[in-house]
């Protein structure tokens, strides 16, 4: 019995890995005792190129690493940092864990949903902001905390959130 492939894997479009990314992945694969160790670093590179991991790139990656798309899909969906669909230009990830909650994370979340007119998990109509909740970011001493793309913003309150959003064009 063969499982039918996930719809995620059957979408077609024109995403091609850049030459630079292909070279880097090939080099990385050769540097580990097992090629497959390059998988997670490779997915990071792909996400750096596209902002998410588009399905066609999985097939290309499977060929490079001599593995199967389904194995890659399993890994991809296991880790929370990989985006399975496009995200806004600014991906806002707010910590919902204990230290941040104790110091007002909920207020920040409510404030942002109101201000951006989106719910958690959604992207604004202009494609600028995506709002996601995440678990402890390891910055609990500076709670509440959020990440925008790969930068941390700490000790948040409404005023600070306003200031930060103003700087994001």
């Amino acid at each position, binding site marked *: 019995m063969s499982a039918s492939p996930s719809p995620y894997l059957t979408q077609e479009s024109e995403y091609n890995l850049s030459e630079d990314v292909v070279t880097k992945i090939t080099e990385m694969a050769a540097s580990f005792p097992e090629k497959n160790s390059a998988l997670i670093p490779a997915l990071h590179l792909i996400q750096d190129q596209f902002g998410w991991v588009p399905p066609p790139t999985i097939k290309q990656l499977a060929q490079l690493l001599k593995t199967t798309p389904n194995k890659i899909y*399993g890994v991809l969906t296991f880790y*929370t940092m990989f985006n399975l669909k496009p995200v806004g230009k600014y991906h806002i990830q707010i910590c919902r864990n*204990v230290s941040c909650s*104790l110091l*007002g994370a909920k207020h920040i979340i409510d404030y942002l949903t109101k201000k951006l007119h989106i719910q958690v998990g959604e992207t604004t109509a202009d494609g600028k902001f995506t709002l996601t909740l995440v678990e402890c970011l*390891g910055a609990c*001493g500076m709670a509440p905390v959020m*990440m925008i793309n790969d930068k941390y913003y700490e*000790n948040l309150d409404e005023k600070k959130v306003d200031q930060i959003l103003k700087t994001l064009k």
Partner: protein
Amino acid sequence: MANQNILLNFDRNGANHTLENYLKRKGYSTLSEKIPNMKPEQVLDEVKKSGIRGRGGAGFPAGIKWSFLPKDSDKPVYLICNGDEGEPGTFKDRVILEENPHMLIEGMILAAYAINAKHCYIYIRGEYGFALQRVQQAVDEAYRAGYLGKKLTGANYSCDITVHKGAGAYVVGDETGLMNSIEGKKGQTRNKPPFPAVEGLYQCPTIINNVETLASVPWIIDHGGAAYHSIGTEKSSGTKLLSISGHVRKPGVYEVDLGYPFMDFLNKDCGGVIGNRKLKAVIPGGSSTPVLRPEDCEKITIDYESIAEAGSSLGSGAILIIAEGSCMVKTLEVLTHFYHHESCGQCTPCREGTGWLHKIVKRIEAGQGKMEDLDLLTSITKHIAFHTICPLGDAACGPVDSFVKKFKDEFIEHIKTGGCPFGGKFVRFQERV
């Protein structure tokens, strides 16, 4: 403060991450001056004598772990540094990774020498972009200066370090999950035995230690295991990094000699509870460790024995302070959500059980709980704990059992009044430092 600075031996406002700065602090001198006159077994011996216990949470003595490596294997040995730092409340390794990466690298080279590992990995959680950048820079600097690579400066030995970026999964912090992740797999954990020391990364003997454990090694070898052992208490030697957060005036990362009185630490070093509130609860070692009431904390000292005697654990050294006015049911709701979200899904008791725990706590918080729910919670934890491959299931149970036991009145009040006495929200504290 009488506490020593072994790991935080730098001015916290300066540029401490560079090789130049580390050399000024006599960095790499252990490697270049002591190692040429020491055999690997002697390095291992000093670490054993130091009595240092693993700083990642489980507190297993590092020297003993290293000696579990098979003597007759012809496979390569790997050393992994665990910088996944995912336990909620924990942010202490980040300080070493960002501010003192060369001390970690020197520690790893010394450890690699002791266990005859030629290749080491530093696994850092993917969200720590800045730490990843700093550590990679430091590794590059160390290669250029000849501390890493073939034939290390001052030693007839070679050692390579690869920095590996994680991708977001708490369970990968478990040593076997981490090895699967480096192998490019889902970060699900492995059954033990075989233990990593016998069959770990790429099926080869592997030693895995926390960032803080490895960063302590240069001091231990430089001053001797006995000198390290003389700091702290008999069973908890040395210094410990503590990351304190929550309702505390001066949150942050501190280094204390183990055995330091908890109330002194909270009130003198950290400025006490925020907003002049009364202390309500303390989670002493990261979110997985059982919660304590203020009266449990009066007499405890910060070390493995004392906190264990009080019914909890020093864990990763992440102290969470909860002030009077906070809802414990809501707090537990946040924690149970976390464990459910992070369960890797392999073992039924954990995958299903953590979801039930969260669902039940959530309905109690919403005022829809029943009195039977309290027994139900503790009967579920009984079926999760110690019935799973890895300790994530156990970790989920610690908070549930202890919150229900120590704050039972509050759970009952939620059930009897059909609502949250705190309005379902956390109080907002205006006072900030």
